[in-house]
């Protein structure tokens, strides 16, 4: 079962929820935590995993054999990303623009193009206190996180409980992280910014056909419009975490909520049980 933890707005507490949920379930189930916020992964700060393995993530980029090349220009014509420019006696490749689709090498009539790997990030894995852990890290200066997310997600084992920490926003990295999830938890805060981005996130998960529920963090900070929205839209609010200086203090020091305040563990196991109930009810509906 894959549960992704997303938000739309950044800084609402995705990492807090993902790490505490994983820690709360590890004594009764096998749990994997995959940090797919590959631009700014933070789960390792909280879980301090022992890293036991890693692999670099490459995307294939073209390498031109100018001995074979006739400068016909078919590769440049085929590349919609403008990653290849062909001049009278020279070919230029712009690796940062290449998506690695492979069209140029396949279509080159002279077979003058081979693909070589360009490293754009890394996936590391290991374990922390009984939790299987993996995260992806995009190299600084690189633009494309999705190939790194794909590699990190390849570590998912659906037979276990897989918790995926997602980056903020609603565009390609978020979609790549959430798709194929069984459920998506949307963490928000009760403020106008939180609501605005929650609505976008709900639209995104609907587009992907993934059921969702909401966690309201820092309850008491703003207004009641997030709750009103969830009620109106029939989106279950599965957990509410109050605005609390002790929680903020723990979070600032990289201590998970359930470690710093163990009384919260029950709330997170209940959160999971509610998700399972929703999933069971849903599959019951589908069967009927």
């Amino acid at each position, binding site marked *: 079962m894959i549960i992704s933890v997303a*938000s*739309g*707005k*950044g*800084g*609402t507490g995705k*990492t807090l929820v993902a790490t505490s949920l994983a820690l709360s379930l590890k004594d009764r189930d096998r749990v994997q935590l995959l940090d797919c916020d590959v*631009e*700014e992964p*933070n789960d390792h*700060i909280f879980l301090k995993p022992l890293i036991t393995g890693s692999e670099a993530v490459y995307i*294939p980029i073209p390498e031109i054999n100018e001995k074979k090349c006739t400068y016909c220009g078919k590769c440049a014509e*085929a590349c*919609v*990303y403008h990653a290849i420019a062909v001049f009278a006696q020279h070919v230029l490749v712009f690796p940062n623009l290449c*998506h*690695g*689709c*492979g*069209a140029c090498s*396949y*279509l080159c009539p002279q077979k003058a193009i081979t693909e070589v790997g360009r490293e754009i990030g890394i996936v590391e894995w290991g374990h922390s206190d009984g939790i299987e852990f993996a995260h992806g890290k*995009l190299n*600084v*200066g*690189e*633009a*494309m*996180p999705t190939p790194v997310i794909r590699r990190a997600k390849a570590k998912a084992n659906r037979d276990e409980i897989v918790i995926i920490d997602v*980056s*903020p*926003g*609603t*565009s*390609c*990295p*978020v*979609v790549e992280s959430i*798709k194929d999830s069984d459920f998506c938890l949307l963490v928000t805060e009760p*403020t*106008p*910014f939180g609501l*605005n*981005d929650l609505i*976008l996130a709900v*639209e*995104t998960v609907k*587009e*992907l056909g993934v059921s969702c529920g909401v966690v309201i963090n820092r309850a008491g*900070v*703003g*207004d009641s419009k997030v709750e009103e929205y969830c009620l109106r839209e029939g989106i279950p609010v599965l957990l509410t975490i109050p605005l609390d200086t002790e929680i*903020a*203090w723990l*979070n*600032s*020091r*990289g201590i998970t909520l359930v470690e710093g305040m163990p009384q919260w563990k029950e709330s997170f196991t209940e959160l999971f049980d509610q998700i399972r109930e929703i999933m069971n009810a849903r599959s019951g509906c589908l069967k009927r």
Partner: protein
Amino acid sequence: MQEVVVLSGKGGTGKTSIVGSFAALAKSKVLVDCDVDAATLHLLLQPATREKHEFWSGQVAVINEEKCTQCGLCQEHCRFAAIKDFKVDAISCEGCGFCSRICSAEAIAMKENMAGQWFISDTRYGSLVHARLGIAQENSGKMVALVRQQARQMAEKDGADYIISDGPPGIGCPVISSLSGVNVALLVTEPTLSGIHDLERVLGVCHHFGVPALVCINKYDINEVNTRQIEKFCLGQGVEVAARIPFDNTVTKAMVEGLPVVEYSRNGVSHAIEALWELVSKSLTI
């Protein structure tokens, strides 16, 4: 004309609240929201839309079922696993067009993709260029480039002194697109271990692209040990800490009222942001 972009790496550190206040403080400027997939600056600036445009970007493959012979070549070659059972998953399709070029039955067409909308709006603080990327769309980097280009044209036309840009979180494509060629990046961080980690990475991106950076520590009093660690780190990197802003719930209250915090209340937060803008604008005139 000088351009400042406000970035953070980590989301939710206060970029938009600070940009909203800069909007109220700066005299002659064009505002631009580069967080195109989760834009919120408009919630503080209450814009009236002057112009609305469609943003067409990229393509998506479409298979003509009548022509398709189900040979499977497209599925075999698609690197993005976007074709399953001879149907295109538009969300996974990256629009490379490889499938369309190799289809022997000429059954695959590439269709232009409407990736969102962008707007030029009037606010009581001046013009705002902003956008809304379509749900689950790609090309956020191109859209950022577009809104920045529009803001630049407008600033040139109006003779504005500054472009003030609210950036996206992270370090990937839209961040790089919002950063290239700006005069200074203001990096807003918070004194949490996550905030520090993410600051280091986004500062790395600034260095990578040769953009000078200033740092602002928001909610600095949440953990003053961490605040000192950030200051030490910045000193080591030769980056100036331009402001320390205290935690204060009036920032959220101002947001609920739809106002920049400097207009909502006079307190430690508003004083710190005023001093910050003074420093940022000074760094831009040098």
